[in-house]
């Protein structure tokens, strides 16, 4: 029964993801990739348990490597996403009328 509920969660989350991500403009597709990559490094929560549980040494070591890999993505992923998003700036003087004029007026 639990696996059915998990399937529900998966399908609904994928649906939400699809809806949310459809709205991301092509402008931000690279930050989107690095962001989803950072977020999916949540597999860290599984790795942490593995690294710290009292199972056997090999499990701990597998967990250790997994935690290192996932942490690289968490730290590096969020930092680089932030670095990119920081760069996206509007026109310095964002008077809405002026911007509009620029878009249509420059044509001739």
């Amino acid at each position, binding site marked *: 029964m639990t696996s059915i509920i998990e399937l529900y969660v998966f399908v609904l989350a994928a649906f939400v993801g699809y809806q949310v991500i459809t709205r991301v403009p092509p402008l931000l597709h690279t930050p989107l*990739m690095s*962001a989803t990559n*950072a*977020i999916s490094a949540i597999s860290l929560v599984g790795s942490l348990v593995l*690294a710290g549980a*009292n199972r056997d040494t090999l499990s701990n070591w597998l967990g250790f490597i997994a935690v*290192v890999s996932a942490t690289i993505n968490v730290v590096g992923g969020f*930092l680089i996403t932030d670095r990119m998003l920081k760069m*996206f700036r*509007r026109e310095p003087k964002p008077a809405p009328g002026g911007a509009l004029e620029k878009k249509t007026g420059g044509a001739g």
Partner: protein
Amino acid sequence: MDTRELVIQAIYLASSVLFILGLKSLSNPDRARLGMQQAAMGMALAIIGTLFHHEIVRFDFIALALVLGTVIGYPLGMFVPMTAMPQRIAISHMFGALAATLVGVAEYRINEHGLPRSTMAALGFEVLFGALTVTGSFMAFGKLQEFITGRPVTFRGQNTVNITLFGVAIAMFGYLIYRPQTSMVFYAMIGLALLLGVFMVLPIGGADMPVVVSLLNSYAGLASSATGFAIQNNVLIICGALDGASGFLLSILMSKAMNRSFGNVLFGAFGSPPALVAGTQAKDLTVHSVSAEDAAMRMAYASTVIVVPGYGMAVAQAQHVVRELADLLEKRGVTVKYAIHPVAGRMPGHMNVLLAEANVPYDRLYDMEEINSEFPQADVALVIGANDVVNPAARSDPSSPIYGMPILDVDRSKGVIVLKRSMNPGFAGIENHLFYAPNTSMLFGDAKSSLTRLVSEVKAL
């Protein structure tokens, strides 16, 4: 469910909400940064919450691994140049998939005997997708970093080999669900998946990288999600699904932008274009080359210039000079816009990031659909190291391998100036008639030095 477990689950729920809100914020460039910072908070919360897990008894490994991961991850986040972003993203898919695969292996080892079939199915997915993504991403990284050749590597019967490998892996997976305790098969399947990742990316050329990188993004997400099923953790399922959906959507968008079919994307059986067939008659045509002085003159006295950047701009790291030139032109009253093709460069959004790095305001960057109607009014379209995405054969020549691919209608503008290293055909080996058109002038040379010359010529006017 005891109190501790309840608290952990509540934290996971909060993190999930923060992640979704973070992704939602990406729909608006002005809010995106804050939203992603909140998502990072969500991640921190989830990590702290997990440390209270009842099974965790020792913290030495955890602390050491977290420190080591941070030490490696920090420079990967802070110091990697924007031009290296495609390979940076590719390698991060490898790390994510590696973590998922190792968790899968460890879970299998511990529970080898008496593993329920549903868990085995989840674990199978996890290691299959995970292992395939590990080597696939590493290959993609190698190709983008250029220590593996960027050209498609093909051999006779390649597709047969790939399909056979895939079939055998799936058969092994099926057998494992039937008999979860056969560990030999489990490890053989991982080996096969690792091999499959290599073979999958081997035949793919640089120009097709945006699709592959997105696809691997999706696979890495699916592997994480399968981890969630295997260890019954909802936050993992949710995040994996978000990542999977995102990568999937991007690969569809990218393949549409290259006019490749959906099935092509799903099975990764793309990559070797029927090279050097079309447009060979171009030999009799003449090329009009132009001096930097004339080109600068034409742009300086234009009223609208549309800049069309491509991978050549990234290679030459010319984005800052582009911006400098645009500034000078704007000072003279020229309207400068940027036309961005969805697959320009080596990953989705590659050009946008580079131009944003060069301080180009994002409201000057136009998508293909927005800008295509404006080319006929543009006095000059300045093509910087772009080739296939501006090839009119995609519109007019049914025999061309890229026929049907949506392109930027650069050829319809009043004049075209193309910055190009030489007349060698582009990556896919397809002849581009734009370069021979009567309204096209070629300015040969490295994109960056050509632009620098243009800048000094405009200054001298």
